[in-house]
């Protein structure tokens, strides 16, 4: 009786160990691992999160598949980096002219506590009309950030408020949802616009085959 239960526990423990190994394999080497985790963002098709755009529509990574995408993180209470990034992106989109319409351009807030749908709508309204603002529950934002292999952190300020440290790079994906490259903060327009064209042309190359 006693030895049977010990055996039982042993079998259960082996089972758990086996499952853990299997899950580990699945995630690291198996089909559960779409790309090796080298710090690069996952393909959009491997991400899972549910957010709301600034017009109240439900959106997620699937929304972005089918056209090349430019995605970045920020928050509307950000006085320096975020308006600069949004203004830079508006400039790149102007440089693309009519081609900008082929692109998904998404600003995901890392501060859903203050950035609700209305705040996002008002804010993105000041920049290029192609820019969409996404927000949602903190936990869903966290999932998105994780998929992009980005980070964010709430930091108190001297004024008693808080600010957010966050990844400021702009992520580019092709029409299939595959990560192409990032445009880093302050990268000159001479580099940014060709990178955008590259992400867009990868879509054309796909279409041609």
């Amino acid at each position, binding site marked *: 009786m006693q030895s049977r239960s010990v055996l039982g526990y042993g079998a259960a423990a082996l089972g758990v160990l086996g499952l853990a190994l299997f899950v580990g394999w699945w995630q690291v080497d198996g089909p559960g691992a779409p790309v090796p985790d080298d710090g690069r963002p996952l393909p959009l098709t491997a991400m899972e999160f549910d957010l709301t755009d600034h017009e109240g529509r439900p959106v997620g990574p699937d929304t972005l598949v089918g056209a090349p995408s430019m995605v970045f993180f920020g928050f509307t209470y950000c*006085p*320096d980096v975020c308006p600069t990034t949004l203004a830079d992106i508006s400039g790149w989109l102007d440089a693309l002219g009519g081609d900008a319409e082929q692109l998904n351009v998404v600003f995901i807030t890392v501060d859903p506590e203050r950035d609700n749908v209305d705040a996002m709508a008002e804010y993105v309204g000041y920049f290029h009309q192609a820019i969409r603002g996404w927000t949602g529950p903190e936990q869903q934002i966290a999932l998105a950030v994780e998929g992009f292999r980005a980070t964010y952190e709430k930091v108190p300020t001297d004024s008693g408020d808080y600010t957010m*440290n966050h990844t*400021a790079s702009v992520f580019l994906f092709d029409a299939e949802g595959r990560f192409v490259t990032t445009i880093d903060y302050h990268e000159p327009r001479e580099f940014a616009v060709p990178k955008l064209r590259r992400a867009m042309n990868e879509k054309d190359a796909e279409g041609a085959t």
Partner: protein
Amino acid sequence: MKYTIHATCSVLMLPFMLATSAMAGSADVVVENAWARASIGTSRPGAAYMEVHNAGDEPVTLTGLRTDLAMMPEVHRTATDEQGVSSMSPAGQIVIAPGETVAFEPGGLHAMLMQLQRPMEEGETFPLTLTFSDGGETTVEVPILGIAARGPED
């Protein structure tokens, strides 16, 4: 735009320079190309940018900011690390060597305007006073540009 700023600058500094002509250091500070972005209401902090030039032959130390626009103006520095993560923190005192210009620009130093007392409206200006360790001050009239402005010429 540039001409206007220069003109405003010199007019504002004239009485100050006359009054403190004996004082070295901060009396030789010239602020140029100041600009700020408009705000949405007053709940979000604003930021202002400028070039601070030390035209004298002694180092000067910028110790703080003052403006009626914001209860808590503070010199901040944004830093972006190798992972592309941006963060922002008080920059402390800024020493400007003789002949040097310190640029406050997006992604670097900025005048962080916390607790706005009124919205920053595009087309308006506000006075920003820079205070120095020798007791001197320089006030510049900062033009407020659009929210999507990228520099003083926008």
